[in-house]
């Protein structure tokens, strides 16, 4: 059952890419995602994959090359972090707007300035409205599993959208941990062959990316929005199918000790594991606490999250990214919106945490659970826009 290995998150992503064997990878190195490009170009050099590797001169060109490759019917992949993703920005919208599936491993890193190479989610969270599906990964195993599933999700005929698979830079990308890989042939069977209905090389004339006049542009945007709605079911179906192959089950989010939880922390990526340990410690004392870890942030599981949190008394939403809007981070805003439809809503507060690689500890989460106790006791949220782990603040 699977292949037991010790791999870093970056090696896990590169291994998934190797087993998927994409037609084209165009990438430009940037810390902390560089290793993925390094490993993968070695596979290409060693003949372990059939991929056409395009060494480009910038991330703008990397995404442009991927768009061209996907439009030509190729299964396409790339990887980046932080400023690299920012440089792709214009093209992110082009890829999803032209309904070109591809996969992008985002090794999350703070978007400067001042310059910082360490982890937070300001890069991918900034791209949350670019029409890309976003999957987040707690550890190397999830980064690997999500990357394999991402192929099938984005390429599904009801979806045809590009997919970002995110994991925390350094914290998981450069940490070695146990992992269970699938055998090469199982991955090959699972991802199958990418068969686009139309592409530039199929012999039938096709224009990709021409001027879209007011006569049609809005309809195309509507279709893109519908594709994102349809993606939710496809993600669940693909995940179910993956569970049969791997034994590992994934939903739109993971619930941890949530059934009877009165106080809940909502969190994405690596810190979810740390939050679970804090929950374990408090559960051992009989406290009703739980964790909801978001895996799929785009499409946002709005009704499902509301259903999962409807019995909680107080919820703290963690954002490893500040929106600088004097109100709260992106995860908070969406989770709170999800809860609005409930007749009886939990009280909700937001914490900005871990920016630029500030270490996030079990103690931080105990502090947050403790703050939720206060919210439950007083029945008031107090200030909802909070920060934790900032010197001089708390």
């Amino acid at each position, binding site marked *: 059952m699977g292949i037991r290995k*010790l791999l870093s998150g970056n090696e896990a992503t590169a291994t998934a890419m190797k087993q998927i064997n994409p037609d084209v990878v165009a990438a430009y190195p940037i810390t*902390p995602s560089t290793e993925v490009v390094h490993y993968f170009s070695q596979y290409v050099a060693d003949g372990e994959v059939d991929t056409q590797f395009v060494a480009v001169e910038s991330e703008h060109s990397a995404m442009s090359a991927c768009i061209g490759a996907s439009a030509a019917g190729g299964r396409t992949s790339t990887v980046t972090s932080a400023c690299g993703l920012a440089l792709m920005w214009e093209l992110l919208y082009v890829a999803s707007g032209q309904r070109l599936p591809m996969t992008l491993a985002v090794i999350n890193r703070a978007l400067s300035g001042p310059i910082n*190479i*360490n982890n937070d989610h300001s890069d991918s969270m900034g791209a949350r409205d670019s029409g890309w599906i976003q999957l987040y990964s*707690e*550890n190397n195993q999830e980064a690997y599993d999500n990357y394999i599933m991402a192929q099938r999700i984005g390429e599904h005929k009801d979806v045809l959208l590009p997919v970002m698979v995110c994991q*925390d830079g*350094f*914290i*998981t990308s*450069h*940490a*070695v*941990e*146990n992992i269970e890989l699938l055998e090469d042939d199982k991955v090959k069977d699972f991802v199958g062959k990418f068969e686009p209905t139309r592409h530039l090389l199929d012999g039938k004339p096709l224009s990709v990316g021409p001027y879209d006049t007011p006569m049609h542009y809005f309809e195309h945007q509507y279709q893109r929005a519908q594709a994102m709605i349809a993606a939710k079911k496809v993600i669940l179906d693909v995940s179910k199918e993956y569970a049969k192959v791997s034994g590992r089950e994934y939903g739109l989010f993971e619930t941890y000790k949530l059934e009877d939880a009165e106080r809940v922390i909502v969190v994405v990526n*690596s*810190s*979810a*594991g*740390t939050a*679970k*340990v804090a929950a374990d410690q408090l559960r051992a004392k009989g406290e009703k606490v739980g964790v909801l870890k978001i895996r799929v942030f785009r499409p946002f599981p709005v009704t499902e999250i509301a259903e999962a949190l409807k019995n909680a008394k107080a919820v703290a939403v963690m954002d490893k990214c500040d929106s600088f809007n004097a109100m709260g981070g992106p995860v908070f805003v969406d989770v709170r919106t999800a809860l609005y439809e409930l007749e009886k809503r939990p009280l909700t507060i937001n914490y900005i945490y871990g920016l630029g*690689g500030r*270490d*996030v*500890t*079990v103690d931080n989460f105990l502090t947050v659970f403790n703050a939720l106790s206060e919210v439950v006791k007083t029945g008031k949220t107090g200030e909802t826009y909070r920060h934790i782990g900032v010197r001089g603040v708390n």
Partner: protein
Amino acid sequence: MSNMVEIRWHGRGGQGAKTASLLLADAAFAQGKYVQGFPEYGPERMGAPIAAYNRISDERSSVHSNIYEPDFVVVVDATLLSAVAATAGLKETGGLVVNSEKSPEELAKYYAADLGGYKGKIYSIDASQIAGEELGNRSLSNTAMLAAIVKVSGVIPEDSFMKEMEASIKDTFSSKPHVIAPNMKAIERGLKEVKGL
């Protein structure tokens, strides 16, 4: 979590503390353990203080933070004792392992002001000397330090560790077979020459 051993490494950029923590992770993994091995990343430059970490346990640990209350601390460069809070949070039931020609008693006296009142055990090993004699380069002390922490922590049986290291070094240095035997010798001496046991 039961049976979890947490180790913090202090070294200077270029001394191989990160590599040693990854080799320890490999060796423990080969013993069927759940392992984490990760460095703390900052400005990467030769000589700057760096930290690396290991969690080794029988069940998977989901914590993704640095280690603040380690069972063991390994100091690859003794001058760091005066530069960083090496004993911060160190459990007194564990131990401090220092690369030094000084004995544990001498270290305790010499660095008394830097040890922050640490009352636990101190171990020393002259890993730079071993590296100089076996590998011809005093700065390649990390393999002997790795052996020393394996000996002190007992986290892996010595014979399995030797076997695992041999395979790992053969793999790493497949293009330089002449460095395999000297590295194995440095590891052997690392296991034998730890003071303070």
